[in-house]
């Protein structure tokens, strides 16, 4: 049975967008897929050694708030200082209380499962990022390198 291939492009750097690429990649790997994630633009935040990701209801009308608050909570108030920090902290607590793996753990599991993590070299240069700030074991490459794998993939996801 030929191994199936999963290619993911991760472009977002907030807490809520960080879970899908790592969960999908680690699960696919457990199911025997050969998997590669290409991190570009804000997705590069997911590769930092120290993860400090945030989530905010501002501009995220689909984000649930405790007690059904999202139904009436005015959008303007979500821009208040401290709201983002509070929502991020609440989200993290929720994840922990429900037994969901932390991002660091998921990322480590991915690397253990030999999921290839590729950082977009162009974006690193664009935002003047320090390659030493990223975790070990990742590759720096461009879009063409990603297409080499993505072109053969059975599943290609844009996240």
């Amino acid at each position, binding site marked *: 049975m030929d191994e199936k291939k999963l290619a993911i492009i991760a472009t977002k750097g907030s807490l809520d967008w960080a879970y899908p690429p790592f969960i999908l990649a680690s699960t696919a790997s457990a199911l025997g897929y050969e998997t590669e994630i290409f991190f570009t633009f804000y997705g590069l935040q997911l590769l930092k050694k120290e993860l400090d990701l945030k989530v905010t209801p501002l501009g995220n009308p689909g984000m649930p708030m405790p007690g059904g608050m999202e139904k009436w909570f005015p959008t303007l108030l979500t821009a208040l200082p401290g709201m983002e920090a509070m929502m991020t902290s609440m989200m993290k607590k929720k994840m922990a209380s429900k037994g969901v*793996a932390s991002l660091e753990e998921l990322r480590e599991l991915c690397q253990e499962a030999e999921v290839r993590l590729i950082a977009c070299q162009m974006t690193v240069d664009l935002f003047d990022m320090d390659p030493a700030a990223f975790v070990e074991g990742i590759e720096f490459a461009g879009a063409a390198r990603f297409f080499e794998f993505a072109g053969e993939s059975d599943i290609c996801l844009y996240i």
Partner: protein
Amino acid sequence: MADFDEELDASGLNCPLPILRAKKALAGMDAGKVLHIIATDPGSVKDFEAFARQTGNELMESMEEGGKFLFLIKKA
């Protein structure tokens, strides 16, 4: 429940941890050996069915007992 060679307690762990841990445990086992898995995540039932189908490891038993989900997987 039939005999098993190794046990994995994935209680309290949610998707995708149960199957990830199972994959790791199976990797360290010989072919033909059986892994007993205990999980509390209801999603793990379908996950393990899919896992068995995809990886070719046999899902010998899948049952619920006392609020926990128990699985027996034989390494291919």
